[in-house]
């Protein structure tokens, strides 16, 4: 039986979203069943009007230009590409925390990128963690 992973995105820092995408890719490569929960920062990043604009580092001491130039030099794609690829290749479901959605814009799927499958509450997140083999929060 496939291992289950829960990945929770709480940050909208570009480096954290990139790390999340890479971790997700690794899990997809190993045929895991993955649930991605978009918490406060994740909900912000996956907003339809923001998803292609999230380029600020989450860590204040990182130099933004150095980071973005480094991504380019290392051929690291825009963070959202990892999540799209993971969706195309693997068993990945994206859940928007309804409260986080409402804080930014709404709890309607139409206001978030098409990757997002469901709106959920904290109960679903906690239940998913209980059932998963491991849980990562970024």
């Amino acid at each position, binding site marked *: 039986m496939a291992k289950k992973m829960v990945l929770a995105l709480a940050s909208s820092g570009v480096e954290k979203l990139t790390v999340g995408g*890479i971790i997700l*890719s*690794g899990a*997809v*490569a*190993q045929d895991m069943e993955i649930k991605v929960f978009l918490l406060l920062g994740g909900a912000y990043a996956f907003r339809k009007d923001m998803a292609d604009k999230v380029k600020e580092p989450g860590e204040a001491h990182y130099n933004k230009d150095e980071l973005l130039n480094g991504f380019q030099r*290392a051929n*690291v*794609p825009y963070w959202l590409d990892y999540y799209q690829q993971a969706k195309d*290749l693997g068993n990945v479901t994206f859940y928007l925390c309804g409260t986080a959605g409402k804080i930014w814009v709404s709890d309607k799927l139409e206001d978030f990128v098409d990757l997002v499958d469901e709106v959920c509450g904290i109960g679903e997140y906690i239940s998913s963690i209980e059932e998963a083999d491991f849980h990562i929060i970024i």
Partner: protein
Amino acid sequence: MNEEELRNLEVDKVVDARGTSCPGPLLAAKRSIAEVKVGGIMEILSSDAGTKRDVPLWAKKVGHEYLGTLDEPGYFRLFIKRTK
């Protein structure tokens, strides 16, 4: 397999992932193995250091056979046999 055997392998699909960084080559391997018939061989070209260990680990994890690696100037070639 030894170097000569790897060089003489008949490969069904070549995946050129040179220039991409982890997890690019790994995802390319996962995507492309589906296009190889069972029993067929996929060759992955990569210049990403982490991939050298990642792909054999991935193959073992998902049940394919890792045949070996050849080092070339500036990149390496990994050979995977699809077993299921």
